[in-house]
């Protein structure tokens, strides 16, 4: 158990050091430690199996340790509001990624309009608070459902089309959403919606700086904890759903529609349910983003972001719940960390994804084979 906590602590320390190291010496030391740790795991199989066995035996302890470290992260990053923001963003992508993974990974409903559904959540929050005058928390609760109901226009194509044709339908939906947001008056056109009021819960405004254990944290830490809660809840809920009979039914639908239908799995029900629950999570992520940043505009939700969401799911591991968490926590901070590369950043991002797909096609944390006891 101690070994499990210790290894988690090492990963956490490496992660934080990797983010915060600025001077060449510190950077080199962190890089060296990372490579050494990776090499140790790669070339000492006995250590690897021992650690894996330890984590499998002390699951609850490992999860508790991970939760404590996640709660402590803003403390480690307190000097940098920017990195607290990036960490929050990564957590939002965990929520979004879990939703998308339910659609793409579990049910096989290809959705290339993730950004559009996140945008529906974000814009709904903006319109509900700015035009209708709702408080942010209420808008935050309602906005994901708007994403779900607008997603209903895709119900028929989802049932009718397959594979590449379905991919095209969702791409077209994403483009339509973006063009409409750019040209409609009530959504603010290219400028988007500004000054979305921040969240205020029982008198606590999310713009004031919280203090944890006597240490003052940047204001973004409020949203970090909110996003952590939401990401934890969605991950837990979707894990339960994935392990339930419904998750199994969705898997069979993905793998062989005809065989699944022969066994009495309803195609209509399964696909629409997975699509809607997925959109609920994606919309929730987008809504939280809008409240956190305080404004939404069309470029925040363009096709490129759908691509990022898709890469979180696929690089993490298709249909793998922990894979999505890992994917989001790596893919979101990584380009930010390499900001010093300036314009080469996106180029390298694309290249890294291609290389990963070629050499680890099943993702960083491949989905485990289902076991029933």
């Amino acid at each position, binding site marked *: 158990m101690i070994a499990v906590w210790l290894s988690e602590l090492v990963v956490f320390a490496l992660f934080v050091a990797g983010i915060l190291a600025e001077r060449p010496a510190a950077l080199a030391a962190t890089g060296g430690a990372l490579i050494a740790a990776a090499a140790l795991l790669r070339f000492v199989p006995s250590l690897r199996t021992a650690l894996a066995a330890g984590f499998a035996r002390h699951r609850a302890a490992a999860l508790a340790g991970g939760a404590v470290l996640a709660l402590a992260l803003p403390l480690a990053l307190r000097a940098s509001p920017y990195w607290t923001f990036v960490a929050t963003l990564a957590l939002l992508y965990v929520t979004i990624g879990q939703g998308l993974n339910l659609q*793409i990974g579990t049910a096989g409903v*290809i959705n*290339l309009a993730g950004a559009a559904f996140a945008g529906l959540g974000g814009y709904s929050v903006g319109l509900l608070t700015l035009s209708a005058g709702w408080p942010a928390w209420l808008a935050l609760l309602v906005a994901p459902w708007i994403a779900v109901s607008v997603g209903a226009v895709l119900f*028929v*194509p989802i049932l*009718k*089309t*397959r*594979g*590449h*044709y379905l*991919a*095209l*339908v969702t*791409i*077209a*939906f994403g*483009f*339509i959403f973006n*063009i*409409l947001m*750019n*040209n409609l008056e009530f959504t603010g056109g290219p400028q988007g919606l500004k000054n979305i009021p921040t969240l205020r819960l029982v008198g606590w405004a999310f713009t004031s700086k919280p203090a944890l254990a006597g240490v003052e944290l940047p204001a973004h830490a409020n949203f970090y904890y909110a996003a952590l809660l939401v990401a934890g809840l969605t991950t837990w809920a979707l894990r339960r759903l994935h392990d339930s009979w419904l998750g199994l039914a969705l898997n069979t639908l993905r793998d*062989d529609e*005809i*065989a699944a239908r*022969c066994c009495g799995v309803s195609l209509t029900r399964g696909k629409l349910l997975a699509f809607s629950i997925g959109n609920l999570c994606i919309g929730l992520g987008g809504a939280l983003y809008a409240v956190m940043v305080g404004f939404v505009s069309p470029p925040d939700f363009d*096709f*490129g972001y759908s*691509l990022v969401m*898709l*890469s979180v799911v*696929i690089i993490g591991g*298709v249909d793998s719940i922990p894979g999505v968490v890992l994917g989001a926590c790596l893919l979101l901070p990584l380009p930010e960390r390499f900001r010093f590369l300036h*314009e*080469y950043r*996106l*180029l390298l*991002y*694309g*290249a890294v*994804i*291609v290389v990963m*797909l*070629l050499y680890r*096609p099943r993702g960083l944390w491949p989905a485990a084979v289902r076991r029933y006891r």
Partner: protein
Amino acid sequence: MPPLELLLQQALNGVMLGVMYALIAVGFTLFFGVLDVIHFSHGDIFMLGAFAGLSTLLGLAAVGLRAPVAALPLAFVASILVTGLVGVLAERVCVKPLARSSPLMTLLATLSLGLVIRESVLIFYPRGADPKPFPQLLPQGGFEVGGVAIRYENLAILGIGLTAMVTVDLIIRRTRMGAAIRAVAQDPEAAQMMGVNLDRTVDATFFLGSGLAAVAGILSGLYYSEIHFIMGITGGVIGFSAAAIGGLGNVYGAIVGGLLFGVLQTTSAALIPRGSEFRDVVAFAVVMLFLIVRPRGILGEQSVERV
């Protein structure tokens, strides 16, 4: 209701846009035919074709060759060569190695490759972030038939596009390589047993498709007299839409789909208020509705699924 002349005019413009879309769509459909994948970086290859053409034209102008009759064909040849080679490279690096894995993998891989191509142009082309003016080399002016203005420039674009399509059609139907492409599209294993070199055929297909995209890129530069590094995103999505409307894997379907998409865009721009802003909304919405009615396109194979 706008007058008939306006509609005719828009339909004519639509046909011209449609020829460009069709050129891109044929690439999508050819790649799908031989490897059963959607090569999503094709849109960015189209953009690359436009930039390669522009560079050639600028280079030729620098050595004093400005006459369109000589410069344009050279630009086309150079651009087709460059783009075709990049297309083959893209296929070798990230399409064929993943062709046997799930469609999701090729989807993400080619989308990311498109990002790499786009960013490379942005970074390595001088002042790549700005829209680049494209030299106007086609004859200006025009004439009028029954209230419909016909410009020489448009006729030239139409002519070049049609020539490219007829050439590809001839290559596919009349040459040995074309026969190999058709054979691989039908059944790769059987084709290999008949002595078709699969790798070479796939390479040739990607060269052909990417070369067509280069032609489309230069034509688009000539038409809009401006090119931009992000033009590949919309170009790719429209080309893919056109190929899908026509039915993936069918070359004639892709041409019909391209023309349909172009006419749809221009007529909706004329028919609905603020049409120029919302024309793509209408076009994409029609594509979605269309795929509901015919989930495999106009000329797509209506295969019955078997267990």
